[in-house]
């Protein structure tokens, strides 16, 4: 229980960091970290399939797209970055508060609703899950990554010629 609490807290901090920081690069790293912690939680909840998908989709494709977007942006000076971070924290000061209130309400709600929680038939062997049971989904995930790569080629492949920066 203690481990779950620490992991959830870590995930909340990472996700808040992703939204509240002014630097796009740090926000992307924080998002990837959120995804990684969520994957660990899923592994611990005996859902290896969900964990692997979370890791592959979020930490893979989304980070690639984010990094590509960042590469288009003008770099900030250190002082500008600090200033922007402070402004962002000022603007979104209420987010941690909302998170705490939401967590509190969910805890109350969960105790009252008591859902059946039917655990899906889980095969413990991850390779069997990926290659035998959910092969179509894995194939689909590969295609999403493939599409993401195409997106990067389409958006940035010829960028220098049009006057942008790498």
């Amino acid at each position, binding site marked *: 229980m203690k481990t779950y609490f620490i992991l959830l807290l870590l995930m909340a901090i990472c996700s808040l960091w992703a939204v509240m920081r002014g630097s796009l690069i740090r926000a992307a790293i924080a998002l990837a970290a959120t995804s990684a912690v969520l994957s660990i939680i899923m592994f611990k909840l005996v859902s290896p399939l969900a964990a692997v998908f979370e890791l592959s989709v979020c930490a893979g494709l989304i980070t690639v797209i984010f990094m590509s977007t960042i590469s288009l942006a003008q770099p900030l000076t250190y002082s500008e970055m600090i200033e922007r971070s402070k402004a962002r924290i000022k603007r979104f000061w209420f987010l941690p508060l909302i998170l705490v209130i939401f967590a509190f309400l969910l805890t109350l709600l969960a105790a009252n609703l008591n859902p059946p929680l039917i655990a899906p038939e889980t095969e413990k062997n991850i390779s069997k899950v990926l290659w035998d049971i959910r092969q179509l989904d894995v194939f689909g995930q590969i*295609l999403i990554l493939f599409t993401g790569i*195409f997106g990067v080629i389409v958006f940035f492949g010829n960028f220098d010629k049009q006057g942008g920066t790498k």
Partner: protein
Amino acid sequence: MLSLFILIPFFILILINLFFSKAVKKLTFWIAAVLFLFQALIVIFKPIEFWSGKLPSIEKLFPFSLYIDNLALVMLLSIGIIAFISLIVGQNTINDGTKRFNFINVLVLANIGMNGIVLVKDIFSLYVFLEITAVSSFILISLNRDMEALEGAFKYLILSSVATVMMLTSIALLVMYVGDTSYETIGTFFKNQQFIPFFILVAVSAFVGGLFIKGGLFPFHGWLPDAYSSAPSSVSVFLAGIVTKITGIYTLMRLIISVFGFSPTLQNLLLIVGALSILFGAFSALGQKDFKRMLAYSSISQMGYIIISLGTGTPLGIAGAVFHFFNHAIFKSQLFINSAALEEQTGTRNMDELGGLQSKMPVTSATSLIAFLSTAGIPPLAGFWSKLIIIIALWNSNHKIYALIAILAGVITLAYFLSMNHRVFFGILLEKLENIKEAKPGILFPAVLLTIITILVGLFFPFILNTFILPVQSILG
């Protein structure tokens, strides 16, 4: 053999990118054209060797669990035709070779995504293929990388992400209660429930809401006019013709028919959203100056017809919805091709800057008029029959008010299309348009092809009805 609808395009994609030489680059258009035509022809002629044949080595290597029925067949046919048409338009409107090559690649990827959506029988696999199609669509919309296109793609990206979150939440809740993600297991769970738990209601609402966003239905249509009007012409044809319909409307049909089942609440929701979409789309189209935006609002209205027909929950209503789905894919793609022809030749989409083009662009004018009349439901064109089935289905299922709304909106559709036709093609030719010539044969060919389909489907309605449309009713079991 069904896995070939996913595997062949995938291997073609690998092939054309692995051997990235000038010769292969030149052949890309033809390879993709054969691929899309093959898909359409395999559905039209239904060769028994293909549908009942087995390829043990491929099935052993890729043991995908897929499923086909009459509804899926109509969808595969629509995807094949519209992808082929969009490919031809792209070949004739995208001048840069590299951009054209990228366009074809992403078009093939979107084709894989949509074929997957149609053939899967698992709610999580459905989500995966929805994402492939969505990511491909963002790339296609922003292909020109100009401000307007990027804004359109961004709006689509944001709203589509909201839809994704809603659908994933729904899947999580369904797994929590049902324990599985297959259509069959979830469908059985719904059939056996006398009292639907609160969280399951939340799950169904979230999924249906997400699909309303994907389908661009009122009041979740915010992204649609911008995405349609800012995308390159060939992409507008593809988006309006098939992508939005497969990701939003078909998925909604499939899940309601095969998984969630019809309930009075869900039916009422479909009827209300359908009726509001019909009216909102039609009235908004009336006030547009931009040709493409008018077509986009008209799409919202026509998709409302499909949803309202689905809302009847009757076999005839479902047949009407599927028939109008096919017809709308054909005539709306045609109108977007006409829009591309006008934009290419005159350099504007603003209808106030056009007039009297009928004498200068007779083929574009004639094909536009036929598509307008079909959209408005004028006999004996294809659109008339599908709207007639929808209105009969509404009347028979005792939804007379909705039937009247459908008839009234048909009159408004006719009004905005006649007004538009008058402004663009008829009247006095403007002085600045005197040197305008008819569009290139490469753009006229797909428009004429779709016009022929619209006329033939209308004239041979009894054959089409018995061969493709009525068999769809069997999916209700």
